């Protein structure tokens, strides 16, 4: 990042090492191998993949979150406490998280897990804007799980508030009980209904909670309450939630609060931190840095 003080040759070496180091890092990740990349490198460079160079920073945000995610997944589920931190200074209200989430979970019309609230504040010329992405808060004292008559929505030991689609009656009591309006109901509609027919991508299966479901007829999740679930199905495969990975401002962080050396634990030690509607005592797991 600084000025090019090194001579050309040294810089080329550095770049080469950097690229190879990057390759080595991703080799280390359990799920994705850079087979083609390594082979290309091997073919042209006649060298071997070097171990990670000390000077190349591995503390960059998403790779750090990725690593910490893998660490956390090794622990028993009751020792994890997933939290999300949203830096409102970095959020640019692009709505990519809203749409990415809708695409990842195949959300139909009328269901949105993570809208972004955009406010204009002040009087000209002293004005500003505030952007607040609002996923499910995954409260520690969730008002929604308290009121479900059959316990179809419940809080997992790792903190994620889940819904059992096969149990849920669709009584919508939990929708009324959420102070953040985070729950939606699946009315059974399609975006492309009567156009003249529903397009194939709407009948693709979705994998929420690790269950494969196709929205057809009267089957769940149609007729159920639905909400953000921190992409459990992605966590189960060592991937960060979609909103975290597609955020173009890099404003969304996710991790295990019980890891004192983790990124999210350090972020919420800031004086900028706040949670929404703290006075209600719900103790959300989503923190905002204002």
């Amino acid at each position: 990042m600084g000025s090019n003080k090194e001579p050309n040759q040294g810089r080329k070496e550095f770049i080469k090492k950097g690229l190879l180091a990057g390759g080595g890092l991703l080799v280390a990740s359990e799920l994705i191998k850079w087979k083609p990349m390594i082979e290309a490198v091997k073919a042209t460079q006649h060298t071997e993949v070097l171990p990670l160079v000390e000077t190349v920073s591995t503390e960059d945000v998403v790779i750090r979150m990725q690593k910490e995610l893998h660490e956390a997944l090794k622990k028993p589920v009751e020792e994890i406490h997933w939290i999300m931190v949203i830096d409102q200074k970095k959020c640019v209200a692009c709505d990519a998280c809203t749409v990415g989430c809708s695409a990842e979970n195949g959300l139909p019309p009328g269901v949105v897990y993570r809208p972004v609230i955009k406010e204009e504040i002040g009087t000209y010329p002293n004005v500003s804007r505030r952007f607040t992405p609002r996923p499910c808060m995954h409260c520690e004292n969730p008002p929604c799980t308290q009121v479900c008559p059959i316990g179809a929505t419940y809080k997992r030991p790792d903190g994620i508030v889940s819904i059992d689609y096969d149990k849920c009656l669709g009584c919508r009591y939990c929708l009324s009980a959420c102070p953040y309006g985070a729950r939606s109901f699946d009315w059974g509609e399609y975006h492309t209904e009567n156009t003249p027919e529903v397009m194939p991508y709407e009948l693709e299966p979705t994998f929420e909670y690790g269950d494969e479901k196709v929205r057809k007829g009267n089957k769940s999740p149609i007729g159920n309450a639905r909400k953000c679930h921190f992409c459990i199905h992605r966590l189960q495969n060592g991937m960060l939630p979609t909103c975290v990975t597609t955020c173009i401002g890099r404003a969304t962080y996710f991790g295990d609060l019980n890891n004192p050396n983790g990124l999210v634990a350090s972020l919420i030690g800031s004086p900028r931190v706040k949670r929404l509607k703290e006075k209600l005592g719900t103790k959300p797991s989503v923190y905002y840095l204002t």
Partner: protein
Amino acid sequence: MKRLYFFIIGAFSLVGLWAIYYRLTEGLKMTALTSNVSWGLWVVFYIFFIGLSAGSFLLSTMVYVFNMKQYEKIGKVALLSAFFSLVAGLMFIFIDLGHPERFWHALVYRQPTSILSWEIHFYLIYMLIIVAELWFLLREDISRLVIKAKGFKKFVFKLVSIGYSIPDNSEKLERDRKQTHKWMKILGIIGIPTAIGVHAGTGSLFGVIVAKHMWNSGLTPILFLVSALVSGAALMLLLYALLVPKEKQDNTMLKSLGGLLILFIAVDLLIVAAKYLVGLYNYVPDERQVLLNMMFGERWYIFWVGQIMLGAIIPILLLSIKKGSSTLKALAGLSTILGIFCVRWNLVVPAYLESPMPGLETAFVHDRLLFEYTPNLFEWITSLGLISIVILLFSLALNSLPIMETKEGKEDNGETADGVQAI
């Protein structure tokens, strides 16, 4: 006259059946509900009928627990309407579920922290109590009807009587009647907290919701309970004044029932005043704005014309008329019932119309995420159809069973009973 009545009700009931079928096949997307206004017309009717049921039941306990003989004439009809109102309420919940076929989950899985979970169990117990009371009350007459009736009717009556038959001698009959009295009292006593639990419970399922400031108050369960009593008394007034032929009416009872109704309405107004004036005093948008919208917004008439005029002023005026005829009293009852429906609407829907977080209403654009609600034609048709079905069943029951007149004098064995027609 009766034929016409049954014909009309029957027609509406068929429409109701069709609507329910349509609802079960097409799903909730046929309604105008949204994810942000998730409870609408059907939930309003649900709490209305549960309230009606609890109110009627509590009125019946005046006769069977507190032995207030002057109201004895309406004892049976109170219980019968309690039963059918409960059925109506539960049916409205049934069609309001996203997965009606999973309703049995509520009985198999339960959640102690959820008031709704408790309520569902309460409803069952409550229903059993009503059914038991009705059986005890009517078993004698039904068994007489079993003897008299023929064919299908005989089968139905036999089913309902659960095999009870009039004993041979008068001592046994006397014993049975004493047993009836005893059991009515016991069931009544158990029934009182159950009914209170049923309806104040329904109220507290709204009252505990922190997310809706307007609901979140200790007064909400009380308000529900008092409204229940109001609607119960009004229904009794309406039914008695309407269904019992003028010559046979007990005017004293009607008057004191009317007086009771006025008392209940007054208490209801007091609680409403307490709640709303306190709410308007502060500037918390969640409460003040909701109340202002309710009273002076687009749907102001539901409060002023419905809740106040129809629900309070008109009935009080009509009932205060010294020599008022029973028709006036019936009108007062009807007006109150309509008024209480508006009360129920205002208890449920306005709280949803304010967004829980400023800016959320514009963050996403979709009809199913609006903070507005007007029930569509389908919801109205289904509601009226369902109510017609219940009224039909109620009418059939009234028609076949001796509800509206009490028995005087002893019956001898073998003598055929006075099959008194209700209408």
